[in-house]
């Protein structure tokens, strides 16, 4: 339906010698069609080594270099690659923006959504014993540093301030190490590549990519919900979004490695258990995700990390109930709004829609502060929003700290 690109004018040869050169170029002629009649040989001017009117243009075989030159290498087409498979695989990478958002991620990971954080984490957040001395003041200083003081220009860009804010908050949480020595058994890791495979229905899915900041731990996270709740999820029915298929917006590949399971680190890494993933909305410049898609990305990568761990612990065979459910947390931010996620992997048997489901606790769009303006917002000569930090909410940082301390307390 779309027109084929026509040959460029510069490909044509201008043999005429006595015509005017400044006239407009004649319109490009369509190249003569080459007709192959079986049983007949084309008489070409190839042997005569010069053009002869009336004879056909010779067609030579494509010249291939007989040695391997890395600067001139043409990748073979997909079906000639050694890893080509007939069955396609749908890959969720860090730039995927899923059309249906969290619903699609829940269907793909066979999970049940519970809004709000689990009660144990909430109680961790509220208890005063786990607070940093001068917590509110120090957090507000951290926000002001990220939003106002970090640049010589007027205001830092969103990517910069969300990055600085996250590192400041993490640093604040790490100051509690003297009280909870288990925090010392953790480490941060960046730019690690994750890859897991699983089967859902008849299709193969993979999660791959460099997602965000990973907080690794030597010990696994304790499970958040008990066996009773895990058994109750078997009655939950996954929401379907017909007519859109669940693999929409996922990258379809025919060339892939089967059963690829890589948590990003080699065997013998001292911090094998993924604790929390920290996502930033401006992480990838080429990819702008809307809030629903951003949350879906968080769910998928938390699931990917948990599944990679489960495969390395229990093997790649699907297991309907894991002896010890694997928990991974995730925090996503855009500099002001935070999304908190806790993913508990209860089963690796994801091919059917029945059976025990995984669980997702999601706390969406939690504000850390209302406004951080350089100049006050004045409407009709009245200050509506003062300059500086306004509307700080201490509960958000308490939740952040609770997710951080989960497992160490």
């Amino acid at each position, binding site marked *: 339906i779309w*027109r084929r690109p026509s040959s*460029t004018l510069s*490909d044509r*040869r*201008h043999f005429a010698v006595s015509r005017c050169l*400044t006239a407009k170029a004649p319109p490009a002629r369509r190249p003569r069609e080459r007709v192959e009649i079986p049983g007949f040989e084309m008489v070409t001017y190839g042997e005569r080594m010069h053009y002869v009117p009336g004879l056909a243009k010779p067609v030579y075989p494509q010249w291939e270099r007989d040695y391997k030159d890395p600067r001139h290498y043409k990748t073979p087409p997909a079906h000639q690659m050694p890893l080509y498979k007939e069955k396609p695989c749908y890959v969720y990478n860090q730039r995927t923006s899923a*059309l249906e958002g969290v619903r699609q991620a829940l269907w793909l990971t066979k999970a049940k959504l519970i809004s709000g954080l689990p009660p144990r984490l909430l109680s961790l957040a509220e208890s005063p014993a786990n607070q940093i001395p001068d917590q509110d003041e120090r957090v507000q200083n951290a926000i002001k540093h990220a939003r106002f003081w970090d640049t010589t220009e007027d205001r830092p860009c969103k990517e910069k301030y969300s990055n600085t804010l996250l590192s400041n908050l993490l640093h604040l949480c790490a100051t509690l190490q003297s009280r909870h020595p288990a925090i010392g058994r953790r480490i941060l890791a960046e730019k690690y590549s994750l890859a897991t495979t699983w089967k859902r229905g008849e299709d193969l899915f993979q999660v791959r990519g460099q997602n965000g900041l990973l907080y690794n731990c030597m010990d696994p996270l304790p499970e958040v919900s008990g066996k009773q709740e895990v058994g109750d999820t078997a009655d939950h029915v996954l929401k379907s979004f017909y007519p859109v298929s669940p693999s*929409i917006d996922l990258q379809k590949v025919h060339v892939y490695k089967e059963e690829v399971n890589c948590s990003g680190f080699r065997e013998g890494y001292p911090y094998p258990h993924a604790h929390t993933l920290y996502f930033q909305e401006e992480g990838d410049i080429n990819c702008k995700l809307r809030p629903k898609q951003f949350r879906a990305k968080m769910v998928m990568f938390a699931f990917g990390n948990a599944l990679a761990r489960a495969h390395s612990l229990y093997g790649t065979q699907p297991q309907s109930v894991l002896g010890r459910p694997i928990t991974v947390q995730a925090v996503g931010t855009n500099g002001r709004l935070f999304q908190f996620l806790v993913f508990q992997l209860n089963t690796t048997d994801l091919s059917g829609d029945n059976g025990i489901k995984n669980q997702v606790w999601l706390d969406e769009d939690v504000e850390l502060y209302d406004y951080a303006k350089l100049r006050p917002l004045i409407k009709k000569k009245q200050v509506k929003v003062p300059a500086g930090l306004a509307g700080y909410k201490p509960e958000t940082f308490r939740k952040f700290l609770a997710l951080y301390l989960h497992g160490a307390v």
Partner: protein
Amino acid sequence: MMAVSCLTRALRSLTVSQPALLSAQAVTQTKLGTVVPCTGGQCRGFLTTASLDQNRTRWKQTEKYTIKPIGMKKTGGRDHSGKIRTHGIGGGHKQKYRMIDFQRLHYESDREPKPFEEKVVEVRYDPCRSADIALVAGGNRKRWIIATENMQTGDIIKTSGVIGRMAVSANEGDAYPLGALPVGTLVNNLEIQPGKGSEYIRAAGTSGVLLRKVNGTAIVQLPSKQQVQVLETCVVTVGRVSNIDHNKRIIGKAGRNRWLGIRPSSGLWQRKGGWAGRKIKPLPPMKNYVNLPSISNNTT
């Protein structure tokens, strides 16, 4: 930078004492249009204009369908020679072209050719046409189509190529072949040849009427009251095209017309000829797009 190097290369070729015919290879490499020094020192000229490659239409020659908007090059009413062919076009706000899939019955490559449903994800304004466009998603693909009057986000629209014995009670926005619709339905996005894609009744607020169905063909009245006869397997969408108040809008000022890319007409008073004035004529005869086999006398 590249132009300077091309220029120096061309000038270097001209300093050769014997006028030699440049090899065609060098000619095609220099991007300065025709650079052919002639034998006998007759005309030795070269163009310093930019490349004569007409790359004005390359932006619309992609083969892969994508929903991402494509940057468009405005022609200003000029054709390939650079002269104005259509007056009154030029300027206006920059527009990005969104590839619309006019072939409504476009089966996805993996799926079987059966009737399918799609979900409307977004209905939005399109700068390139008067109607609104809708992003629909079905199966594994998303595409843009012309939106009908009451299309909202979240609607499910059905596309079918099956003609049953009974006429289908069609909802607005669904697409069926003409043979499956009841007589008298308002239709839009009519295709003349089955499978070619719709070419008629696409403007804002327009709709055609299915008048009658005659053995394998159907007769549709277009918005200009012209009647056409097409095969009954041609797929149409049901309902009126979106943005029905498009003809009632008031431009308000000359500047708004300029934003739309419409340049003022020439102010010269020109005597109107036989084409002007109100004409009352009978309707043109019905146009037949069905290629019926000719009845020849030599059939044995």
